[in-house]
């Protein structure tokens, strides 16, 4: 069979849309109305504006001395937004003329016979200025939107490339590990790949959510815990994972570090907590507040007697303590009264961490 020539029909990255903040949500009805107006054809908008001018002029005449000059801005805005500044100016002049006709019919007494014409000319000028300003605003809004969409697409592409590079690093580690004969050495490479996997998932969550600065850590923590339990549960052990995670917003830097901390704690529990146990429970908790806290608890063997985190820290624990300091947090490692080990990481909330950047870092405390 002869293969046919192919071509790309379009680019594969769609720009991610913003619009999740409370402020943007409150403006949503206005945006929807403007979108509806934007879809109306130029001719339809101009005709509708002319009809509105006629209706307002009729009310203006019926209500007599009560001035409705301000209401002519509605058709002016409609025509400008949808059909451009020329239509806006046209409707503005028409509105002023309609006002003049109604005013003449009511036979108002003026000090000079040209006064009504002067007033109508002033109205036409005001309507024209509004039309000009609005059309400028619309052009700037369109330019801004295009720029935001372009940058959003670029940012998504950057995250995509980061993930691709993480894939290459992970692949290299896998290929290098093949040359090792010792299972313990290979496990070290596997751990590195798990850490890379954790970071890659954060990038994925960031650009798929469309929020490039902050993200909800709960979803990431849950996915990571499930993935690690699936791949690292000791043979012959039936493990029950319980994840109780509240939504906690963190910035990317904190998320990456916190993800690596969670990765170390979970791997540590899976590697050392249940070896030889027929069953076990692993609990992961995440709670928000003025001070967020993440807890990893297992009911396995627990800490050895006289364990001191400062003296007995292996590489994993050393990394946990270092990274906890990095996010201005505190680590509490203790034997659980019910058996097993409980590690809690306290870290500042997103709001307080913004202000804490200028403050001196607290020293972490250790318990055993």
């Amino acid at each position, binding site marked *: *069979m002869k*293969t*046919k020539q*192919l*071509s*790309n*029909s379009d680019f*594969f*990255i*769609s720009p*991610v849309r913003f619009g999740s903040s409370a402020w943007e949500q409150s403006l949503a009805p206005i945006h929807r109305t403007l979108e509806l107006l934007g879809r109306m054809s130029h001719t339809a908008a101009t005709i509708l504006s002319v009809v509105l001018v006629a209706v307002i002029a009729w009310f203006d005449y019926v209500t007599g001395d009560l001035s409705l000059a301000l209401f002519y801005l509605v058709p002016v805005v409609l025509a400008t937004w949808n059909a451009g500044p020329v239509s806006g100016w046209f409707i503005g002049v028409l509105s002023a003329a309609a006002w003049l006709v109604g005013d003449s019919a009511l036979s108002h007494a003026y000090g000079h016979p040209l006064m009504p014409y002067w007033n109508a000319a002033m109205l036409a000028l005001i309507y024209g200025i509004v039309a000009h300003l609005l059309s400028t605003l619309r052009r700037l809004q369109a330019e801004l939107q295009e720029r935001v969409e372009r940058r959003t697409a670029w940012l*998504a592409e950057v995250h*995509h*490339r980061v*993930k*691709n590079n*993480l*894939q*290459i690093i*992970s*692949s*290299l580690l*896998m*290929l290098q590990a*093949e040359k090792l004969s010792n299972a313990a050495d290979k496990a070290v490479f596997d751990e590195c*790949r798990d850490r*890379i*996997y954790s970071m*890659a998932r954060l990038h*994925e969550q960031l*650009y*798929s959510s469309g929020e490039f600065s902050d993200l909800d850590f709960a979803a990431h923590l849950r996915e990571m815990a499930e*993935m690690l339990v*699936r*791949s690292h549960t000791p043979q012959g052990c039936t493990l029950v994972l319980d994840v109780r995670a509240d939504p906690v917003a963190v910035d990317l830097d904190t998320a990456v570090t916190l993800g690596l901390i969670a990765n170390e704690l979970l791997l540590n529990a899976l590697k050392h907590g249940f070896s030889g146990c027929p069953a076990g429970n692993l609990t992961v908790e995440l709670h928000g507040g003025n001070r967020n806290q993440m807890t990893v608890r297992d009911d396995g063997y627990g800490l050895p007697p006289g364990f001191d985190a400062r003296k007995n820290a292996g590489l994993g624990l050393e990394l946990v303590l270092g990274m906890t300091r990095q996010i201005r947090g505190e680590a509490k490692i203790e034997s659980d009264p019910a058996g097993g080990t409980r590690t809690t990481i306290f870290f500042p909330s997103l709001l307080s961490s913004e202000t804490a950047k200028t403050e001196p870092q607290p020293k972490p405390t250790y318990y055993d």
Partner: protein
Amino acid sequence: MTNARILIVEDEAITVSALKRELASLGYQVAATASTADEALNAVELHKPDLVLMDITLAGTVNGIVAAVAIRGNYHVPVVFLTAHADDGTMERAVAAGAFGYVLKPFSGPGLKAAIETALHKYQTEIESRRASTRAA
């Protein structure tokens, strides 16, 4: 379905090497590898794989989604996307291209196996239901 023959379509040589080893360790055979859409089409015709593992961003001018549509249309081979793209737009296009599944980069062994087995099972079910409806007609 272990022993399934898989075509890898990926333009990163290091990722291809890692994939070959990972697939072998999971019990699959690598039928061939390709780095462009045209190579992929030729390889499908030549090697008749059971499944194609397709990257979305490929060398050359044609991306993996377009190649997947051609493979599905001309050869009726299930395609699983292997991609670093996780945004909704890409996923929608992958589904529209008739994807039987996707694996996000960086891949893990269990994730890769789950996606491949699900795709092969889904494809088998699709063939059987098509045969049943032909017989009924």
